[in-house]
């Protein structure tokens, strides 16, 4: 991202933070009021049943004293930004990375499955694309199924994959990676088919005048021509792979990884844990995409196609 590009992006972040901060008040007003009443504060209306009748915003306006308290609840419905930030700081920087309490530990669990799945998915995607471009039968048969595969909700498919692989003794990293691969191969197939077919008739004729072999045509023309398409696909693929790994952690009661943290936070009433995992996952995805963007710029610049990037 260029320096100039940072300001619009920060403006959006600032806006989201502002909306979030304001939303904390009405979202947490009722439970804050209940707690405050137990701590002998005077709350209007006094009866909890009556309070259910009015909105969170109305309740906060009637009892301005509870507004600061909505930001410091132990188990808020919506944690405030600073609570999430503290939870992230606490679990990333103050715990040993090998500890189960460390978010770095959980990040690594999810990241390793993501990267393995991404490698499997990308390899599969490139191989399928080569097959589709060079083989008429594969062109007719594979593409429709690749598209169909992506119409199946991954949330429905993931538990089946995990349970079935578990039944034949495959557990841990690989089942999650397979779900990652399942999500990440598709953009690679689509992008690479387009990229490998991007050389025009004239460029192909040129190779025919040299009586170049199909092999030479692939390595000297089709593959280099597909590079800009490949990188675009990889950036979509790696974020899909991360989502896949997290989804793979949800249905089985996995004990580690971002998915497990989100589930634990939800089930044990620790919203800060869920939110911290959510943001950590988003930051991880952003970093992965940023690394790929950097590789893209480097590669295309070296190939003299910097302007295309």
């Amino acid at each position, binding site marked *: 991202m260029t320096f100039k590009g940072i300001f619009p992006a920060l403006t959006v972040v600032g806006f989201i933070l502002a909306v979030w901060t304001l939303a904390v008040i009405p979202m947490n007003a009722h439970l804050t009021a209940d707690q405050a009443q137990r701590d002998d504060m005077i709350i209007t209306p006094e009866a909890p049943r009556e309070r259910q009748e009015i909105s969170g915003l109305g309740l906060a306006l009637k009892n301005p004293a509870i507004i600061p308290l909505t930001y410091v609840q132990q188990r808020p419905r919506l944690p405030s930004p600073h609570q999430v930030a503290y939870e992230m700081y606490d679990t990333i920087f103050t715990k040993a990375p090998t500890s189960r309490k460390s978010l770095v530990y959980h990040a690594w669990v999810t990241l390793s499955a993501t990267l393995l799945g991404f490698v499997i998915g990308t390899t599969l995607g490139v191989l399928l694309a080569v097959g589709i471009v060079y083989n008429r039968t594969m062109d007719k048969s594979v593409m429709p199924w690749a598209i169909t595969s992506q119409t199946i909700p991954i949330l429905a498919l993931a538990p089946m994959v995990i349970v079935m692989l578990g039944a034949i003794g495959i557990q841990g990293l690989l089942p999650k990676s397979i779900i990652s691969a399942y999500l990440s191969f598709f953009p690679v197939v689509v992008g690479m088919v387009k990229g490998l077919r991007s050389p025009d008739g004239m460029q192909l*004729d*040129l190779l025919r005048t040299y*009586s170049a072999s199909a092999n030479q045509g692939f390595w000297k023309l089709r593959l280099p021509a597909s590079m800009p398409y490949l990188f675009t696909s990889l950036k979509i693929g790696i974020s899909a792979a991360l989502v896949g790994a997290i989804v793979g952690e949800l249905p089985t009661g996995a004990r580690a990884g971002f998915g497990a943290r989100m589930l634990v936070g939800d089930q044990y009433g620790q919203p800060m844990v869920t939110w911290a995992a959510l943001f950590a996952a988003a930051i991880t995805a952003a970093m992965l995409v940023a690394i790929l963007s950097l590789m893209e710029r480097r590669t295309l610049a070296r190939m*003299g196609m910097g302007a*295309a990037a």
Partner: protein
Amino acid sequence: MSLVISAANLDLTFETNDGPVHALKDVNLEINKGDFVSFIGPSGCGKTTFLRCIAGLETPTSGEISVNGMTPDEARRARAYGYVFQAAGLYPWRTIGGNIRLPLEIMGFDKADQAERVSRVLELVDLAGFEKKFPWQLSGGMQQRASIARALAFDADILLMDEPFGALDEIVRDHLNEQLLQLWARTEKTIGFVTHSIPEAVYLSTKIVVMSPRPGRISDVIDSPLPKERPLDIRDSPEFIEIAHRVRDGLRAGHSDD
């Protein structure tokens, strides 16, 4: 003089969704070694198709065609010709030197030979010093010159050019025409050149093949009396204007009967 390309009773029909298209009908032509032959005619007259037949990129429906005494397909596999397309078609990810090396790599020339040939043909098209530049750093005319260098790099005796200067402006085109003549004089290649510009055809050629459309056929073959040495102002000479007239008449005749 030895015969390099000969076509006899050549016919080519394309099957399209709108029915068959008769692209070439009864084409007879002989091209000798060292000839500069232009093919001129309106679009759809089959001039590019004929060039592609010589190159073995299209297969005639019937008739005989031989290149260096072989079928065009064999000649293509023997790398008998270099082909220059309408657009330069340089690979954007290769430098100018890398683009010229492309046919050499494919044909398996060794590294030292490749380097020597690249610098020699760059010199020939007046692009010495541009070896490490990428195509986007060059103007359109320079890119087209690089693509000619690419076609020259492996020393084929025949150079086939399909409207190579069609997309360039007139001043650049004049300049390139002059350079092409010098290059032809130096290398003594046999050149087949497709164009739709009458002055270009007359200025460059020793033999002008006038073609007409529907079906694509040869309506006139003119052997140019102009000397081999041709400064640009030869275009104002009476001989030049006379040949240009004959070409124009041939084109008009082709037009009137469709």
